[in-house]
């Protein structure tokens, strides 16, 4: 049994007024800017295929079936590869941060001297620190 959701009012909501103010300013600016009519995509364009071609620096025409127009874009192969590297690095970083240090070095504010590793809630823990 749960109760209905409640608005989170732990902290003060006054700071949120800054966000509201920003929205107001942005809204006024955007609605006042005159944009020309959008040049949409042509009828029957193969958007996804063109996306793929753009991402891998493949000439779009090679992927198209008949009756499908390609949409021009720039090549992003190098960016794709770099993003791959980046994701890899992020993964390693996250693992490194999450790993415990040897023999209880991961000290906190007056906790975990010897035995209360089991009470550290986020872990779902193994006893007695150190490597697993």
């Amino acid at each position, binding site marked *: 049994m749960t109760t209905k959701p409640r608005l989170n009012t732990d902290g003060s909501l006054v700071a949120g007024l800054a966000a509201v*103010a*920003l929205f107001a*300013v942005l809204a006024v600016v955007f609605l006042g800017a005159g944009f020309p009519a959008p040049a949409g995509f042509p009828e029957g364009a193969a958007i996804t295929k063109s996306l793929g071609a753009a991402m891998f620096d493949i000439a779009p025409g090679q992927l198209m079936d008949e009756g499908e127009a390609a949409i021009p874009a720039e090549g992003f192969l190098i960016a794709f590869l770099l993003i791959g590297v980046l994701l890899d690095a992020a993964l390693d970083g996250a693992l490194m941060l999450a790993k415990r240090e040897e023999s209880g070095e991961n000290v906190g504010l007056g906790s975990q001297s010897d035995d209360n590793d089991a009470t550290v809630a986020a872990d779902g823990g193994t006893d007695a620190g150190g490597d697993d």
Partner: protein
Amino acid sequence: MAAFTYAPAIVLLPFVSFLVALFAGDRMPKGGALAGIAATGGSLLLSIWVTLTVAGFTGSSTSYNEFVYTWVAGVDSIALRFGLLLDPLSALMLLIVTLISFLVHIFSLGYMNDEGETGLPRYYAGLGLFTASMLGFVVANNLLMAFTFFELVGLCSYLLIGFWFREDGPPSAAKKAFLVTRFGDYFFLIGVVGILATFGTGLFAPIREGGDVVAQSFPALAEQAVVNGATEGIAMLDTIGMGAQAWFTVLGVLVLGGVIGKSAQFPLHTWLPDAMEGPTPVSALIHAATMVAAGVYLVARMYGFYAISPTALAIIALVGGFTALFAATMGVVKQEIKQVLAYSTISQYGYMMLALGSGGYVAAVFHLTTHAVFKALLFLGAGSVIIAMHHNENMWDMGGLKERMPVTYWTFLSGSLALAGIVPFAGFWSKDEVLYEALIHGLGSSGGLGPAYLVAYAMGLLAVFMTGFYTFRMVYLTFHGEPRSDIARDPVEVGWNVKGPLSVLGVLAATVGLINMKPVAELTGAHIDFLHAWLHGPDEGGWPAQLGTGLVRYEETLLHDVAGVSAGYPLGEIGTLLASALLSLALAVAGVLVARSLYGGAEPVEHTDKLGNAKTLLMHNYYQDEYQVWLATGFTYPVARAMDKFDQGVVDGVVNGVSSVSLFGSSRIRKIQSGVVSNYATLLTLGLVLLLVVFGISGGWF
């Protein structure tokens, strides 16, 4: 000429003896005394040589006025230099200072060394520095140099009065002397700055190169401004908005402040009786013959400047006359021998100021010379008595020393007769001339000067009676009658290093009057007024033409034409002269006789109670000391405290306020850094909003 090139050695020899006594004195057998005696003896010989040269007996030129050292070479402005001015007045003063200093050094062997005093190197070093400073002051050729040495002699006086600094009295007396004279010197300094600013020069006499004036002196410039109206060069007059003569009077009165302090005239006389806490030879040298003469000498040196201002002359004469009487009244009730002599000194310097103010330049210089001799003699005699009495100064414990200390008695008597002004001793001729000049100029001058001089003359005349009285009271109480204490019955013997200087000065006191026996010269027509001739100089050319000083200029041109000081002879020249002389002699003799009748017997008693209330007033020195202490503590101190509060509260307060604003502001502003990231983000957002709005408005996005 050669004498003049060696003249700086006159000042430097005692300075060297100061250094020797200071650094090597404790290794020397007599603590530096011999160095001092040699140095002052050498200076004395050089001074004699300089005097002979100025008199024209040796060398080719009879005066000297050159710069010897430049401390600050000004470009298009005042340059500060040391230089020597040697003319008859300075040569005479050099002789006096070196002679008295030499005799005092010898006397000190008996007073200090033989009495087993400690700290002698400091004493002889002080004497050496003092002699050097005083000699430097005497030969100074410009006002700034004179001021420098004036202050130095004040310093030496402080050091020497406070010689026995481990007791309570001397350091306090030394401070009092220094502070009171310094108070006067403050006005002197303002006067010096005023003169330098007004005239652009502080020279006492012009410097010539081959007949042309290279650097003009300020008395000459002042004279041109007043007599010829040549005031273009003097820009100060426009700034001040006064006429030339009025402004020069102001400057003269400012310099007079220093003179009054140093020569112990009313109201800055209070330091001199307390200065008797120092050793007696110091009192003889500094507080009788030389340092206190510095003020009078300065006025005489600058006489060309004072002579164009009748107001300044009247002030000098009145201050002098009043001081003469005022101090004499206080001297009659004192019980210590040195105190009587101290008040006597103040009184006699009053006479010199009276002479200078009333146009008797020769009389003033004459009295300066004779007073230096007989007052130094009296102080040294008192020193001899003090040695004999085991440093007990109270005259009521003395008595009967006449038989026991004959040399001291006869020389002291010679000095006393000179002080009282009994013919034919020196003091008679000089004091008589002072009073005569005051009388005739009082009777003959125009405007307000005449009555002013006559008032001052009356005061001086009354002081003659008192001088005779207190001097012989002192003599009778000390030397005559029956001894009143054991130590008087059996006094300590004094040696020849004490009796020698006393004898020399005793003979001089009797004979130095011969240098200017004006009454005899007038009566017989013989040219025996040597001092008058000495200060007058040759009628044509010579040093009066070179330097613009000398009697011709002072008396005939300036005093008579500019200041309106002229002589009146109610009984004809000879008649007035004789009448004045007889009057002052009669008063002096009357004073002596009254003293004899009151104190001359075998068992004199105190008569001062008969004065009644006046006695309290006199014993308390007219409450002048209390008044000056009140000025310092009741008046100056609260003002100083208020100033201090202002300085600390307002001036420092502003500075502290700036810092406390900064501290307060920063302690509030740093609380922004609360460590909560969300707050930082809020601030970021607000900033962004603001920036966008500003850009939007200025860029016309809306």
